[in-house]
């Protein structure tokens, strides 16, 4: 009886541990999804802000004109010059860096040239 109770106790404990682990894992996945959604929301906002704010003074420069890391510093320069709020500049930066990166990405290995 004692042994049986211990086995039941261990199973119950493991079950609760599993539930607890599952509870930890689920939000984690959820967070990743939310983070990805937030990132793509940011890209969308950035694309819109890029058209609205950059075109206010000069022609729009194509994202592929600079490599991603140069958009980082270039947009900071424009943030100061055009008095853009920091969060808006971050959105534009995210859009330009992502677009530039996708435009300058090398073909995956194994792809016929």
């Amino acid at each position: 009886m004692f042994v049986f109770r211990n086995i039941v106790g261990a199973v119950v404990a493991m079950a609760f541990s599993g539930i607890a682990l599952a509870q930890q894992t689920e939000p984690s996945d959820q967070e990743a999804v939310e983070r990805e959604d937030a990132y793509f929301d940011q890209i969308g906002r950035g694309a819109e802000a890029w058209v609205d704010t950059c075109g206010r003074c000069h022609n729009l420069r194509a994202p592929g004109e600079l490599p991603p890391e140069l958009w980082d510093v270039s947009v900071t320069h424009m943030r100061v010059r055009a008095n853009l709020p920091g969060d808006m500049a971050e959105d534009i930066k995210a859009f330009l860096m992502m677009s530039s990166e996708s435009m300058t990405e090398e073909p995956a290995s194994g792809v016929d040239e």
Partner: protein
Amino acid sequence: MTNFFKQSRHSLRHLLHVTAATVLVLALAAQAHGQDGPDPNAASRQAQGGGYLPRLSGQNFSADTSWHLAGYADATFVFSDLDGESSSEFSRVRFNPAFHFQYQDLILFEAEMEIENTETGTEVVLEYAQANLLVHDNAVIVVGQFLSPVGQFQERLHPSWINRMADMPAGFGHGGAQPGSDTGIMVRGGFNLEPGLFTYSLAIGNGPRVGHEGDLELEAFNSDDNDDKAISGRFGFMPRPNLEFGTSFLTASVTGLEVFDGGGDHVDARAFGKLGNEEEHHELEPGEADLFVWGLDMAFTEGPWDIRVEYLNSVRDPLNTAFEGATEVVAFEELRSTAWYAQMAYRLSGTAEFPALANFEPTIRYGEFEIEGHEELAEHSAEQRLDVGLNYWMSPTLVVRGVVQSREFTARHEGEIDEETRMLLQLSYGF
């Protein structure tokens, strides 16, 4: 009445001093508060991608420092017809590299120099050299030599690849009503009003000086010739993304010059018809005068349209000063000047039926520069100017343009040449 306005200007300047000091203190406090983490989102960004922003591929841009070489270059050919006397020349070649160095999301240092050919050789001028502290989403502190925030042309439109014409509007270049630059400290930023935007720039600097002709040098100096700091700024409001209204100001004191020593032919100042009589001239000492500039600007930039209007008004109080060639200090009367322009450009990409024309952009600009209180300056610079041009955009930052310019000098004496027609051809590249 004049005293009332003068006192009002003094009160306004004191109010601006207090406001500027308050904003600076608040901004510095914000920076101090954020010293442990100037970018509150940095940790989450690091967690997401190990870099500055979440990455879609394996590339990593997490380095703390980055830099960028930007700028512009242009070459201009001018054909001029000055009342029947024609000339043609390759007049201007400029190379304006701008260096941007950034450390994290904390500071951006940037500097631009202008390398230009002149009649006497190569000229190198520092346009600006400034450190930008990114203290808050809505505030950047700028320290150093910066372009004047007054108006929209100087700070945002003057690079030739951005400017829709081959030169500056009348009264907006050197010797005009537009302040060019200053040395000091500035707080600037913007607030997203969803969908509108509010922007501000507020600067304290050494301020302008009296020029060698008794005019104003509205450029940056690395020392101050009086105790009064210049305060300038601009406030912009965009009710919708493509429509902007701005108002700006500059208030400062300028100090009269001592008589120039040696060199050149001395001129009897009385011959210039300034105020006062002979006895008074011998007793005059250089004095100080208040300067107040205010302006309004508007921009509409929707689709292929680019429409801009800008107005500047400048008043310098009466001033005792010497000028180049004068043998004594002279009492100059109040110096007033106004400069304005209206400009319209239409990119033919808006006419989809003619794709071959999509890269062309017709432009037109009319502007006036008026000066009262300095006869020689008015005679030289006051004008009405009409520009009609055509841009051909080879790429978004590479343009060839042709401009026909008609100038009428409005303060010339009878018998003097008061009309000029010019044709300007320009190649400009922004990088």
